[in-house]
């Protein structure tokens, strides 16, 4: 499944300072469905190069990270259970405090 993943607010530093990743994610166990839970584990394995604890805590993102699926907060689509479709855009962004 082809997806566009974007990292921002400093999270890009965890994956070679690259903000936009066009990726092709293989579905797990030959299933058709890919959920955000599957994607998070794929990202952790394949994209996060350092300090994984700055990206995840337990089986979800760490506090202070917003997750957006097609410009929409994943809280509105079911968080970890959100189903992804071909060409979806998923943004991971760390909240900023500076001024």
């Amino acid at each position, binding site marked *: 499944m082809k997806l566009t993943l974007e990292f921002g607010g400093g999270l890009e530093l965890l994956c070679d300072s690259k903000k936009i990743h066009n990726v092709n994610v293989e579905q797990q166990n030959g299933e058709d469905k890919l959920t955000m839970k599957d994607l998070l584990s794929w990202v952790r394995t394949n994209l996060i190069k350092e300090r994984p604890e700055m990206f995840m805590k337990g089986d979800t993102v760490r506090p*202070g990270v917003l997750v957006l699926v097609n410009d929409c907060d994943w809280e509105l689509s079911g968080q970890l259970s959100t189903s992804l479709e071909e060409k979806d855009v998923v943004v991971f962004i760390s909240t900023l405090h*500076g*001024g």
Partner: protein
Amino acid sequence: DAAPNKGLSPEMIYRYSRHLLLPNFGVSGQENLFNSSILVVGAGGLGSPALLYLAASGVGRLGIVDHDLVELNNMHRQIIHTESYIGQPKVKSAASACRSLNSSIQVVRHQEALRTSNALEILTKYDIIVDATDNAPTRYLISDCCVVLGKPLVSGAALGLEGQLTVYNHNGGPCYRCLFPTPPPTTACQRCADSGVLGVVPGIIGCLQALEAIKIATSVGEPLSGRMLLFDALSARIRIVKIRGRSLQCEACGENSKFTQQQFREFDYENFTQTPLSVSPLKLKL
């Protein structure tokens, strides 16, 4: 506590003529602005343009909270301060700049750090709060205080080459804790002093904060509530995304929350976020 309700003087009609001509704004927009009061917490990178544009636009009473002194290494982004104010309180410098732009409004100085002991008393005097601060515990403190007092909060942040903006606690929308119930690890809370910031990035976000505060004060347009603006200066890309609504489980604003003024006064924001609310003003070491 609002500014005295009165119409526009002939001088004000001339000064604000470009606003009065706007079909969506007009005389009632300008009068609403003049009868409103807005508090900007932080006279730094975000507060500089926010304060200048709010003063220029004719907000009736404009409050400024800050405890810092102007330093040379602020000046690449904090355009409200001039070199002649280096070493003096930011509140004094910012208030003077606002008055020199617009002597027809009231500018109030709060030269102190915002803490649980003074926040209720200060924020209650204003209709709209602008969060232009630079650290996590103060952001939770301001949001909780706005929830307890029922005030809309225009929240901006900038770091590096990125900025973020939204309106909290307005028209049934979420508060800061609805989005971030658990504070991030302290290692994730970079500050401008550690990581740097391109000066004009908080400039852009601070202007957008002034705009959102003006829209709320005048009931003109759709405020950025339930939406968040994400700005990436490097690629010149801007996303406006839909965020969650008010959370029923929110400890501050949720249905069953009993977060009272008393609890707010006793809440330990430094312990909650494992971060100090403010560092004391640095001594200049030039």
